[in-house]
């Protein structure tokens, strides 16, 4: 309830996927919890004590723009995996609206939902969810098979995405013969095969080694650049969120804590929880000059070098320290502020 209204930079009309007041409550007579304000206001322990219910997702609202990488972050148990399953109704939401391309998803019947899942959405799972009795190529073409495409067509398409994710040469192996990273590439290829509009990732890399994880993150960045899909990405790893996300939704106990870009989370934490969360981040790598510029002091020389507001602090450090006067932060010809040595050092030394 804190964050969603603070960043109304997207109009409903240009959102690809719009989530409004979404609830998912597990437990007996779950329906009553979102309906009755006195129950909806209870925190986790009180709600459980009073009703035996657990709210995994509480009154979430956000929009995902076309082509955006939208990251949902939170610790385990914060409801992020439930949220992503609610988006395609793999888990049926308890209350709220889901609008995809102007269509009300919650009103879709079983058949329509299947059609959407077959062509518009795809999901990548934490433990891959591969079918051990099928070869790589048959795993990848599973989605095409169930929507009734002919064998030559699906073979051709499967081969395309296998090449795209860098699995060439492994088509006829079985999943158990591949490493974890390679298995997740199969999961990725399977999700890409039916050419969806939205890719949903449920902590896809948390079961992988750190090295492989970084490699796969780079892979996702590359794929996003090449195929330009909209992505909803679930993770508990802040550096992953900062690396991939255009915007990040931070969740706690099912509710939104803050929604914003990476530098907004680091530069302007909404509360102590977020501040604690982002404490160990290399701030210089995340913050841009916009966050540290200050109003010029009286009599300060304003003929120093100019930089844009979206330059990272790390990139500006050398220039600012070498300049003998404050650096100006200018956007479209307007002076936003200046940055001197102490502002830069405050960020860099903080690490």
């Amino acid at each position, binding site marked *: 309830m804190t964050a969603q209204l603070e960043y109304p930079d997207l109009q409903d009309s240009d959102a690809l996927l719009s989530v409004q007041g979404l609830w998912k409550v597990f437990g007996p007579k779950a329906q009553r919890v979102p309906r009755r304000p006195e129950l909806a206001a209870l925190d986790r322990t009180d709600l459980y004590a009073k009703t035996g219910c657990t709210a995994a997702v509480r009154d979430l609202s956000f929009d995902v723009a076309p082509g955006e990488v939208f990251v949902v972050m939170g610790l385990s148990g914060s409801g992020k995996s439930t949220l992503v399953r609610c988006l395609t109704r793999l888990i049926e939401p308890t209350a709220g609206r889901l609008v995809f391309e102007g269509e009300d998803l919650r009103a879709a019947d079983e058949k329509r939902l299947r059609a959407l899942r077959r062509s518009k959405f795809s*999901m990548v799972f934490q433990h891959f969810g591969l079918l051990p009795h099928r070869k790589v190529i048959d795993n990848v073409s599973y989605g095409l098979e169930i929507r009734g495409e002919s064998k030559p067509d699906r073979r051709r398409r499967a081969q395309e995405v296998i090449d795209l994710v860098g699995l060439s040469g492994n088509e006829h192996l079985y999943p158990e013969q591949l490493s974890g990273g390679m298995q997740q590439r199969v999961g990725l290829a399977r999700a890409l095969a039916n050419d969806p509009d939205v890719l949903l990732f449920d902590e896809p890399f948390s079961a992988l080694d750190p090295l492989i994880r970084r490699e796969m993150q780079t892979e996702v960045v590359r794929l996003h650049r090449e195929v330009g899909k909209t992505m909803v990405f679930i993770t508990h790893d802040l550096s992953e969120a900062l690396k991939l996300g255009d915007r990040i939704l931070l969740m706690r106990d099912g509710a939104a804590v803050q929604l914003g870009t990476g530098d907004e989370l680091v530069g302007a934490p909404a509360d102590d929880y977020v501040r604690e969360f982002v404490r160990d981040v290399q701030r210089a790598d995340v913050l841009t000059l916009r966050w540290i510029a200050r109003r010029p002091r009286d009599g300060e020389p304003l003929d120093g070098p100019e930089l844009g507001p979206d330059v990272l602090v790390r990139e500006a450090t050398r220039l600012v320290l070498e300049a003998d006067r404050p650096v100006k932060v200018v956007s479209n010809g307007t002076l936003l502020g200046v940055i001197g040595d102490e502002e830069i050092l405050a960020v860099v030394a903080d690490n």
Partner: protein
Amino acid sequence: MAAITSDMEVEVRRPRRSVIVGVLLVVWVAAYFVLRGIDTLVLGGQETTPLHRWLTEHRDGVGQGNVFFDAIRIAVDHFVVLLQNVISQPSFDRPVPVIGWLGVVAIAAYCAWAFGNWKVAVLTAAGLAFVGLQGLWQESMDTLALTVAAVLLSLLVAIPLGIWAGLSDRAFRVATLVLDLMQTLPTFVYLAPLTLFFAIGPAAATIATLIYAAPPAVRLTAHAIRSVPPESVEAARSLGSTRGQTLLKVLLPMSRSTVVVGINQTIMAALSMVTVAALIDAPGLGQTVLKALQTLDVGVAFNAGLAIVVIAIVLDRVTTAAGDRPWRTASVRRKVLLGVGALAVLVAIWFSRTYVWAAEFPSDVNVGSRIAVVATDVTNWVHNVFGGFTYGLRDAVTIGLLNPLEGLLTGSPWWLVSAVVVALAAVLGGWRGAVPAAVCLVLLVATGVWQDSMVTLASTLLATVVVVAVGLALGVWAGRNRRVDTWIRPVLDAGQTMPPFVYLVPFLALFGTSRFTAIAAAVVFAVPVTTKIVADGIRAVPVATVEAANSVGSSAWQVISKVQLPVARRAITLAVNQGLIYVLSMVVVGGLVGAGALGYDVAAGFAQSELYGKGLAAGLAIVLLGVMLDRITQAAARRTQNFQNRGDKR
């Protein structure tokens, strides 16, 4: 002094349960000497009660008149006869079956190779050739035809039920309840009531086998479907699979190996039931064993028993190999070889339809008679050398233990026995034990075979005591020692897959026909399951608990008696329960080798039509005994569990 004692609170402690049990038994024995011979409800071998005569009269009324049961019987009969025509009996105006021995061996070996591997294919060919050499080809094929029919019908019912129970929580709960109940009934008891509906013959045998063999397949199919990782199912749904697609393309393929384990258990259960079903005139090896047992021809019984063991081993190995086969689809080379193999099989079938030598198993090399002679010789030798010892042991146990116990049970008035049993049940299991016990005892009296029931009960109790003692010792040993476990477990597994008939043969050789023989066979039959459950229970005791006990300096015996056995108490009561049921079913089969009583009544009921009703009543009495013993031990188990829970809360 008086003042002091009056001030003290007198603590009224309930006496320990073992004390109450002891007092009850002493009172019983005392009463026995006073009341001996009154109201003992004796019924002679050829005597019958009005109930028995009524059942005999209505033997055909229910089965033959009823359209529903008739339709089932005729359909099943046709199916079995069809299979027999194909592999075992002369058919279609030819003196030989449709496919001769060479064709059958080729088909069986080919299937073993295609579903398993070449090793089990060789084993299959060798095994079938061996039973042919034993001179038991046709009997073996009858057994195989009946087993195949029963297994196919079982799976037809069991797999869909298992899938249903795998998908629906409610169906799963109902199925678990029903299957648990079915497993408590001794195998033997299915036979009697079924003959009422389906008449004596292959149909009733097949249906009895079906009922006995289907549960493992239902259970394991449901379990397999439930253990498919939820993420794979979710992935399939997220790609837009329909329910049918998810089932066919994800759930079923991923449950395959566990379902095959279920099929394996179904096949083994079917084989063992098909041989026992010889009692209701099912054709095959069971008949041979049965006739030999009845004429005390140990050599022939051993030969046929050996054939059953060989077939059991072949079926077990092949299905196990089929379950272990990895996911991979066949390589091109294997596909070509499979195609060539199929051609070879067709050629073999053609040979077996064209040449007599390939159709009828050659009888000139008959190993069977030699095996029978050797077995008889060995038996005689054992008789001569150990006869003094084995017969002495038998007589000592019979006179020292069995006769007094049986005398106590059969000589006391029925109401005295009933009162004592209900009281014991109440002490051990509360009302949950006492009420079912009372109901079962009343019904036992109504069956009219009270005294035979008491004879069977005496043998069952004695055998169970031995089984529990041996099972506990072996189970604790195996549970505490991994090496012993890996060594002992295959033996136990093998023991459990053998049809019960087979056990009788060696004991017949050692001890002759007697009640003791049945008890000894029952002990050997029931020890594996008891040992396994105890060993698993001991193993399940948390390592930390045992380490804690060791760290305070307990001796091995103290660890066993004060930590491991008490913690594993639930497993041990379950072991006693299963031991009882296994013993009961074996003691009944032992009616064939001189144990008499209920087992004999049932067998006689199948053999002599005028005793049919009595046999049926005896079958019912076995069910009642089984249910009574099961309820009492279950209630006792629950009671100990409650004590533990209450202790935990404190």
